[in-house]
């Protein structure tokens, strides 16, 4: 006979069975929170669900106080607790002792682990950071083809340095995103760009997760072109941000960092020119000053001053020259007159010497004559000797007289003396003196020599003296 129980008894029996079953006690249940209600008592009532089922759940205020986050609608959680029967309603519910955000804990641990590992390799060192090119001509971008990132970058770049933008489209979230991003980086490096921007817009930690993957970090590290990361919002930090050369807060910020503004470039150009003008100007002023100094030294007063100085110097020099020259001129003059007197004296002496030689020659010839005659007659010796002596005695004065006569004749024979008396000397074309009218022909050329010169003449007519 079957037992009859009340509804209350039934529900109490079920409650006891559930309470005694390890299969539904102290277990972790993963699901998503929905229909969340928080009561003024501090208790939370919600539904935990997955794709196929759902269960009522309660989180009492006491348990909530031991948790470090606020349960939110649609939050994926791991709830620890037990199944309990609500007898009055005949329904069961999951009583949550504590909760963890599902996945996040794992992701956070993975993030920390990779961060420590890469940091230990020195990949975050400031010394590794490369400077960005000042004027890139090709900017590579790795991001979604359809997202706001590429749009923001293109918009921002339009007012900046005119570089080409080359997009390597990549999947930036979900399965395979990390591989897609790292492939984009290596592709841009292969075609050659000056700098690479890697990024995506904001999102949950799961959405940004690809940028925390090691494969993306490695691709950034080995990129030849410097990498600027622009992932999520300003507050989000990913591993990509740590290993990139520059971290930009947003994609727009990345474009502004990579490409300098036109205004900035323009004013930089102007600054350079102003600097040139300024230093040119100051150098020019310096040149003017130098010129002024020189100009001052060239003033008329200074000029006259120096002329007077020069004049004094010249006077002094002239004086010295006169002293020296005066001495040497009078010296030379006396030497000259000395030479002159010596010249006429020598000539006179020479002439006397030659006359003396002739006299002695005469005396010698007389002596020889006497010597030869001596042998003729011994008898006449004394007579002859006497006569000879007498002759010899006569010859001395004769010779002296002869000398005088010769001197006078020499004087008279000097043709120049004759000419100085007004006579002329005529020579023919051979230079022979013409003494007879017979030795020249009419029409021949003759030279007429006078005291102070000569003249060429032609014989026009000749006439013999009668």
């Amino acid at each position, binding site marked *: 006979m079957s037992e009859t129980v009340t509804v209350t008894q039934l529900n109490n029996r079920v409650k006891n069975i559930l309470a005694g079953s390890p299969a539904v006690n102290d277990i972790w249940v993963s699901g998503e929170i929905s229909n969340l209600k928080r009561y003024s008592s501090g208790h939370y009532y919600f539904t935990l669900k997955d794709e196929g089922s759902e269960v009522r759940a309660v989180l009492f205020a006491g348990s909530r106080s031991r948790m470090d986050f606020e349960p939110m609608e649609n939050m994926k959680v791991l709830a620890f607790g037990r199944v309990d029967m609500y007898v009055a309603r005949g329904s069961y519910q999951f009583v949550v002792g504590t909760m963890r955000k599902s996945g996040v804990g794992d992701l956070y641990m993975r993030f920390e682990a990779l961060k420590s590992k890469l940091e230990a390799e020195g990949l975050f060192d400031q010394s590794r950071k490369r400077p960005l090119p000042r*004027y890139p001509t090709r900017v590579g971008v790795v991001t979604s083809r359809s997202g706001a990132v590429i749009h923001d970058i293109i918009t921002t770049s339009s007012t900046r340095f005119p570089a080409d933008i*080359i997009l390597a489209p990549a999947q930036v979230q979900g399965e395979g995103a990390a591989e897609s991003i790292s492939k984009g980086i290596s*592709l841009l490096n*292969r*075609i050659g760009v000056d700098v690479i921007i890697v990024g995506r817009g904001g999102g949950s930690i799961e959405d940004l997760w690809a940028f925390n993957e090691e494969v993306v970090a490695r691709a950034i590290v080995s990129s030849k072109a410097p990498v600027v990361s622009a992932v999520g919002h300003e507050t989000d930090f990913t591993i990509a941000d740590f290993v990139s050369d520059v971290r930009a807060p947003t994609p727009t910020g990345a474009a502004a960092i990579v490409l300098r503004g036109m205004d900035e470039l323009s004013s930089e150009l102007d600054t*350079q020119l102003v600097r040139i003008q300024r230093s040119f100007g100051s150098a020019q002023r310096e040149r003017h000053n130098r010129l002024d100094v020189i100009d001052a030294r060239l003033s008329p007063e200074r000029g006259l001053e120096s002329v007077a100085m020069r004049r004094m110097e010249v006077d002094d020099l002239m004086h010295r020259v006169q002293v020296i020259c005066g001495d040497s001129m009078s010296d030379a003059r006396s030497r000259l007159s000395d030479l002159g007197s010596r010249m006429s004296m020598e000539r006179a002496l020479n002439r006397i010497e030659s006359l003396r030689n002739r006299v002695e020659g005469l005396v010698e010839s007389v002596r020889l004559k006497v010597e030869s005659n001596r042998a003729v007659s011994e008898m006449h010796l004394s007579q002859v000797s006497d006569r000879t002596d007498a002759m010899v005695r006569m010859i001395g004065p004769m010779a002296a007289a002869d000398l005088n006569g010769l001197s006078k004749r020499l004087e008279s024979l000097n043709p120049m003396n004759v000419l100085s008396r007004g006579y002329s000397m005529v020579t023919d074309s051979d230079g022979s003196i013409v003494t007879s009218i017979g030795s020249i022909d009419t029409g021949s050329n003759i030279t007429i020599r006078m005291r102070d010169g000569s003249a060429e003449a032609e014989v026009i007519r000749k006439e013999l003296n009668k």
Partner: protein
Amino acid sequence: MNGDFAAEVESMTFEQSMKALEELVSELEAGGIDLDRSIEVYEKAVILRNRCRRVLDESERRIKAIMETSGTVVEEDFDVN
């Protein structure tokens, strides 16, 4: 001579022009160069400045997307919108 320089500048990249301009400025600021040289430097600086300005004014950016299909890289114009 400045004609030659202008031709040389035309073949420079923007970066090279800026570098040349900076060097001229430094040279002039260092002082000790004579008047002829400083006029030459100034003229060259103006040529470089004008060239840089022209690059900025005239250049048009190209926006491309690159793809890799079966190992070869292809560039295609990227539609901004």
